[in-house]
């Protein structure tokens, strides 16, 4: 299908032009248009202060929903106590900008006095007091930082928990915070709540009680959160989050440090919640414990679920829709229903307040979305166009030149010391020894095959080398350096890449994204780099994509046309290939392939084995677990045979094939006797 027919399909004129624009350009145009409308909104005739106030609230919801989306949507951590951060932000500002906190005056406060952040209050017959009057702008930052710290504090205990337990722990924290707010009178004024909180001032202008300045401020905060969310999503950080969400174990084996990225998600989500809290309280000038209870957490969750977890535009739209529902639709509908009730003489209809059914609507949204549209109204996954007929019909081609820019090349003939040294490696699961004192050396540039009957401990050996399983005894050295005991992501960083026997791709990420996660350990960008995208980060991303294309090129035209397809939509063989490509993206010195040809037909197997040999030619040391013995005998330099966790034979393929112990292990004792 050429480009003219594809245009004809999507329409003519403006629509056609629109669809030919790059995604980024389209997004910029939409964002610009949205911003223009939002900026003009307060000045449209017929828009009154009430509408503008509702608009400011709507943007606050957008902000909060995007914060929760980082935790729930990107990182996949269901936080049921998100309102806690809203509360902490709110009380942080509320206490720092009202007369609630009464501290005795001392000289310590003098610098803050000069900065105008506190004042000294004379009290008759007692000691002078400090009156806190911290600036809104400073507290916006401080509130976000305080919440980020609490995010880490509340998140840290949950790191090792599974999804539903994690949700319960966050719920517990979410319950504790309002109880503390209700009972810690000194700071929060208890159930009555804080009052008289100072409104923000900017260059001498007091925001006061008019909704207009708050509207623009909320718009600014929401716009910043939208920008940040998009930037994070398409960065090393966002990919790390999503890989943890999809498959935490595989993410670790690709170099993602789950502790770091989970805490980062909690901290960033909490910081955004804190911004929302500081803003909301400054606008409302009061804070009470009731404002932060479970229904608030659920309301924000409803926004994320409705829009689609992980979908930035979806979450923004859902937050706007739900706040529009609250502030406009239900109010208007109530008037209408009440009028109807008076006409038909139904007292219940005449007096019903539909806004009270808001939580009912939230409940219905949650249930209906989970039953019928779990991906949300506006899912995060880009729709990919199917391959054209030509592309589908194209003969599979192999990569013509096997080149990897980073490969070290064949090692010198007399390599000094082995790349991998394993001594006395032991692992027991209950009474079963999956590895029983294994000694193994793998030379640089060698292709070693590990064979053995099912349950002989081959995959466990890989899991031990990559740190996914903790060893009971023994030591593993890579290039002379002990790697046993290191967490998986550090072992990847030292140059061990692997594939899994049961394919573990990040199924809702695209082929390209899967590969880029593989490169995680080789990239540097952190959260700030991801958001501001300085030239260094741009260059890094560009090079990462180039390297991904280079690796995919090894598979000819099998994967290149499917760059943007979700991994879940690939054929079985292509998923195997993608996994090998992802492992190659970690730039391994040692590549562990766990039954890479399982499920492949003979032609595909041969094609893959040619590639494996070529990779070895590039100087990558390879350990291969394989059941197809003809393959093993053909490609291997050496073969190791495991049985019941013990190395029973080792040597050249021919030697191993004739080893009596091996035959016995595979075929059994009696067969050998016969």
């Amino acid at each position, binding site marked *: 299908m050429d480009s003219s027919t594809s245009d004809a399909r999507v329409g003519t004129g403006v629509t056609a032009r629109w669809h030919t624009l790059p995604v980024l350009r389209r997004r910029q145009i939409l964002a610009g248009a949205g911003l223009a409308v939002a900026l003009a909104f307060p000045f449209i005739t017929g828009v009154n202060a009430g509408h503008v106030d509702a608009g400011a609230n709507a943007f606050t919801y957008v902000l909060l929903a995007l914060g929760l989306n980082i935790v729930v949507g990107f990182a*996949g951590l*269901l936080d*049921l106590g998100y309102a806690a951060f809203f509360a902490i932000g709110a009380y942080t500002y509320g206490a720092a900008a009202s007369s609630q906190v009464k501290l005795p005056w001392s000289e310590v406060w003098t610098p803050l006095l000069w900065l105008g952040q506190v004042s000294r209050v004379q009290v008759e017959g007692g000691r002078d007091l400090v009156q806190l009057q911290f600036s809104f702008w400073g507290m916006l930052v401080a509130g976000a930082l305080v919440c980020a710290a609490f995010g880490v504090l509340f998140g840290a*205990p*949950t790191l090792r*928990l599974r*999804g*539903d*337990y994690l*949700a*319960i*722990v966050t*719920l*517990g*924290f979410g*319950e*504790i915070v309002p*109880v*503390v707010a*209700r*009972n810690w009178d000194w700071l929060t004024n208890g159930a009555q709540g804080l009052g008289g909180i100072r409104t923000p001032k900017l260059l001498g202008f007091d925001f006061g009680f008019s909704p207009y300045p708050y509207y623009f401020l909320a718009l600014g905060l929401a716009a910043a959160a939208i920008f940040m969310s998009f930037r994070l999503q398409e960065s090393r950080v966002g990919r790390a989050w999503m890989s943890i969400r999809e498959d935490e174990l595989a993410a670790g084996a690709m170099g993602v440090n789950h502790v770091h990225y989970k805490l980062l998600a909690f901290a960033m989500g909490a910081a955004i919640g804190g911004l929302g809290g500081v803003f909301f309280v400054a606008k409302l000038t009061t804070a009470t414990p009731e404002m932060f209870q*479970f*229904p608030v957490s*659920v309301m924000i*969750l409803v926004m994320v*679920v409705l829009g689609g977890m992980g979908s930035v535009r979806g979450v923004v739209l859902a937050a706007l829709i739900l706040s529009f529902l609250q502030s406009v639709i239900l109010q208007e509908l109530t008037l209408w229903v009440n009028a109807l009730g008076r006409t038909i003489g139904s007292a219940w209809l005449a007096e019903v307040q539909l806004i*009270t*059914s808001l*939580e*009912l609507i*939230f*409940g*219905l*949204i*949650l*249930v*209906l979305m*989970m*039953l019928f549209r*779990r991906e949300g109204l506006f899912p995060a996954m880009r729709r990919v166009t199917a391959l054209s007929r030509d592309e589908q019909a194209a003969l599979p081609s192999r990569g013509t030149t096997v080149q990897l820019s980073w490969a070290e090349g064949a090692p010198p003939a007399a390599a000094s010391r082995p790349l991998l040294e394993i001594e006395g490696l032991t692992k027991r699961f209950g009474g079963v020894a999956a590895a029983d004192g294994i000694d193994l050396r793998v030379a640089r540039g060698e292709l070693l095959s590990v064979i053995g009957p099912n349950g002989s401990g081959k995959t466990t050996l890989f899991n031990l080398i990559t740190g996914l399983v903790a060893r009971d005894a023994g030591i593993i050295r890579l290039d002379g350096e002990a790697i046993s005991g290191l967490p998986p992501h550090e072992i990847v960083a030292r140059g061990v890449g692997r594939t899994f026997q049961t394919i573990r791709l990040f199924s809702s990420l695209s082929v390209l994204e899967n590969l880029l996660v593989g490169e995680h350990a080789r990239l540097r960008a952190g959260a700030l780099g991801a958001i501001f995208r300085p030239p260094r980060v741009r260059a890094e991303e560009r090079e990462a994509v180039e390297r991904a294309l280079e690796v995919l090129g090894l598979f000819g035209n099998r994967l290149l046309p499917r760059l943007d397809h979700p991994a879940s939509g690939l054929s079985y063989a292509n998923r195997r290939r993608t996994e090998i490509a992802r492992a190659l993206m970690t730039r391994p010195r040692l590549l562990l392939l766990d039954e890479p040809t399982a499920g492949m037909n003979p032609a595909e197997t041969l094609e893959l084995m040619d590639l494996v040999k070529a990779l070895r030619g590039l100087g990558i040391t390879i350990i291969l677990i394989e059941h197809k013995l003809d393959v093993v005998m053909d490609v291997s330099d050496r073969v190791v045979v495991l049985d019941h966790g013990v190395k029973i034979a080792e040597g050249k393929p021919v030697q191993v094939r004739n080893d009596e112990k091996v035959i016995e292990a595979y075929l059994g004792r009696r067969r050998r006797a016969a």
Partner: protein
Amino acid sequence: MTFTDVLIQQIVNGLALGMMYSLLALGFTMVYGIIELINFAHFSVFMSGTFVGLFVLHLLGFTGDSTGLWGLALPATLLLVFAVTMTATGLLGVLIERICLRPVRGISGTAPMITTIGVAFIIINVVLMIWGPQTKPFPKIIPDRRWTIGQAEVSLVQILLGVAGLVLMLALNYLVKRTALGKAMRATAQDMDAAKMMGVDVDRVIVLTFFLGSALAGAGSLFFGLYYGFTAFYIGYQTGLRAFTSAVLGGIGNIPGAVAGGLIIGLVQSLGGQLLEVKWTDVIIFSILIIVMVFRPTGLFGLQTPQKA
């Protein structure tokens, strides 16, 4: 009264309360044991049970100012109210499973749990629409009789509810341990697919589990009404979360554990309120929830819950 007397009194009160938490915790634990789902709808099933009980009592002519019943009328009325309420909440549980949870069963991740939060919100708001936001007095059909044992007082309500709770728990124990259905439940909890292949009608087992769990919540809701003498649409969340903590404390999925956990939480509530201030009770209980979840997810008794791969 000396400190010891107060302590004994609070233990009596705590055990009575704990009976209610145990009944409620059993529902959480049974459902979790069988489909590994944390069921937030259970909170609202419990809450709606109080209104079913209230409705039945109103039908029988009892109001908020009714005085206690005597003689045979008391056990007969109690039996009737328990039977109707437990059946009603049991059916509500079945309805929830059939309509909302079966379609999401087996979906990995948090979708089923989010569904139950949605269901909880729907039920709470339907009750709110029907009965309104006011606190409703619950007819005190059990006379206010008290006996003094040593320095501690035991009320008739506490004794009757204690007996009722014990009977229900023994019945459940018999059902799970001694009947074919119980065996099917335990098999399903261990391995749903294997149970299916051995001819267990897993759908039926799950529906019955929801029925039983929800019926016990219904009994728990009557405990709440009769003990506290009121109900309102919002009671489910706090009581439910405490009961959930009980289930977690006893090892979620562990049936005797849920009973023990409920009694412990009841004691924590009454003694915690005595030793610290009442207003911090929930902080203690939720801290227990968090600490157990984080450091001992299998619960106090360390029994392995059936884990599916």
